[in-house]
């Protein structure tokens, strides 16, 4: 009985408070109906288009991501291809450089060999000319020595030849000439 009294008192107090605030159960029901109408309206007018827009954007983003992935793949392939081309170009450049070095070295060797050959020919020719000059000089000196020796011999013989030697020379000559003519 006490509890029933308390509940009645509490209910009465609440009713008084609501009445003082101007809140009635009709008002609450009307607010609930308004809330439901607003929620339904918002769902169809705002939530659904926004959801659709978000889905479309997500699809767009996915498409862009896919395109990006494809582009990245393509870039990777291009990069790989360009690296391969670059590597081959480097190899080719290395080969060309190596060949150029070989050709240059060969040319340098040829030039050196040619220069050596020319130098050797020049040295040989010079040596030959020097030998010839030396030989001519020696021959000339020998001739001059012979001339001088014979001149000295002439002087000595002309001065020192004895009558006997002269006689013997004449006899030998006459015998030789007679022998040849008769023989």
């Amino acid at each position, binding site marked *: 009985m006490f509890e029933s009294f308390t509940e009645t008192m509490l209910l009465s107090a609440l009713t008084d408070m609501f009445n003082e605030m101007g809140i009635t159960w009709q008002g609450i029901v009307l607010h609930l109906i308004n809330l439901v109408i607003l929620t339904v309206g918002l769902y169809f007018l705002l939530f659904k288009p926004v959801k659709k827009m978000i889905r479309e954007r997500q699809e767009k983003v996915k498409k862009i991501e896919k395109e990006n992935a494809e582009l990245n793949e393509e870039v990777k392939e291009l990069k790989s291809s360009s690296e391969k081309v670059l590597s081959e170009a480097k190899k080719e450049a290395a080969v060309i450089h190596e060949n150029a070095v070989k050709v240059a070295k060969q040319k340098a060797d040829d030039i050196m060999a040619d220069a050596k050959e020319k130098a050797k020919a020049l040295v040989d020719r010079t040596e030959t000319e020097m030998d010839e000059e030396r030989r001519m000089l020696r021959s000339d000196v020998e001739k001059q020595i012979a001339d001088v020796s014979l001149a000295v011999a002439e002087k000595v013989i002309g001065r020192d030849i004895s009558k006997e030697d002269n006689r013997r*020379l004449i006899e030998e000559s006459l015998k030789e000439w007679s022998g040849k003519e008769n023989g």
Partner: protein
Amino acid sequence: MAKEQLVAKVVVSEKPDDDILRMVAEFVKEKGCYKTEYVIDPDILGGIVIKIGNKVYDGSLRSRLETVRQVF
């Protein structure tokens, strides 16, 4: 020219003695020459040179030395 008209020209470096004269006379006679003309020329140094016509017999020391010179 007849052989009797040939003159042997004999060149010596000094006056020859009788033996030389005799040997030369015999030689030129062998060559068919009967006249001899002597010339003293010290320039031949020694020995004898005999010219009979176009033929020259040169046994001089100078010619021998020239031969030696040519060898050098």
